[in-house]
């Protein structure tokens, strides 16, 4: 039983190491400060319910899938009741798409008076939005 416990502990530790590895570094060509500013700007703009401006930051080939109307329908019901901004935090990392292109992902936690939302934003090298998810 003790041996089983040790094996499980080793597997859990390995899983923990795996989950933490390599994702915090940004790929070459990305500047951490620029990504952070861009991500915060998007979070601010979205919580100000300005979907048109955010839709304008989406990469050309994704503009239809992430149009202002799509964003408003998907995010509006949650964002409208958030209240005044209180604090935010941001985590960033890099990833490679199936096409081999490198992207940066920023997770922005946005705490407001009446709730908290977390945006997961993916950017290409020109800092165009290539992915937007909100929880």
């Amino acid at each position: 039983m003790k041996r089983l416990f040790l094996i499980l502990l080793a597997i859990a530790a390995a899983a923990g190491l795996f989950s933490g590895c390599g994702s915090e570094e940004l790929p070459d060509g990305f500047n951490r400060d620029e990504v952070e500013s861009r991500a915060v700007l998007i979070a601010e703009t979205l919580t100000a319910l300005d979907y048109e401006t955010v839709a304008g930051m989406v990469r050309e080939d994704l503009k239809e899938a992430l149009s202002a109307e799509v964003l408003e329908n998907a995010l509006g019901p949650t964002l409208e009741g958030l209240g005044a901004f209180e604090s935010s935090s941001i985590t960033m990392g890099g990833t490679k798409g199936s096409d081999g292109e490198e992207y940066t992902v920023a997770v922005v936690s946005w705490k407001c008076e009446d709730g908290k939302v977390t945006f997961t934003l993916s950017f290409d090298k020109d800092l165009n939005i290539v992915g937007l998810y909100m929880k």
Partner: protein
Amino acid sequence: MDISAVIFCITVSIILPVVAVAFTSARQRGTLKAALLGGATFFVFQVVIRIPVLQYLLPEFSWYLLFQATNQTLYILMLSFTAGLFEEGGRWIVMMLFLKRRTLPDGIAFGLGHGGIEAILLVGVNAISMLIIYGIPYAEPLPIFLAGVERLAAICSHIAFSLIVLRGVTNNKPILLILAMLLHTLMNFVAVMMMSSGANDVLTELYVVLFAIGVICFSLIFWKRTEAPS
């Protein structure tokens, strides 16, 4: 639209597990307890513990969302591994503590209960709601049919995993628990990787079916070979 796919799916994911448990317990007295314990294991370790942790607790942390978005393969591996860890670990704990009679029919009934409740909750309930809400569903029949096939294979796999874990309990060999966890992880990981890399749905389900056939044959042969001489 053809309704036979929905009927097949409901038959496999609701009627079959219930009938199989009833049939097994009628033929082999006392196996109903094992089936109920198997069902309870899935409910407690997946529905009550694992799923809320993955869906509500971990997404509260930014590092987890970042991990999810930046390490797709590792994320799928983590999901597959935790399914094996919780379900097989749960089986081991429940069998050790509550399953006092540990025969082959008990192991089969335990797996039927586990896989049966999973099929009912994950697929059966949805198929019934679809039928009630839409009458004849608008969805394509092939994915519904494949969902039924997948449940059938999953029930067989759960029987196999239950037998491997139960043998570990009867022979006091925790390594068999690890084996069941690894097999469970492998089954889920390859299937989800196939789906996420855009493999054909039929091909993915074919893999799940072949895996189930392989693991059920292995577990039955292994059970017989490791039986203590009476």
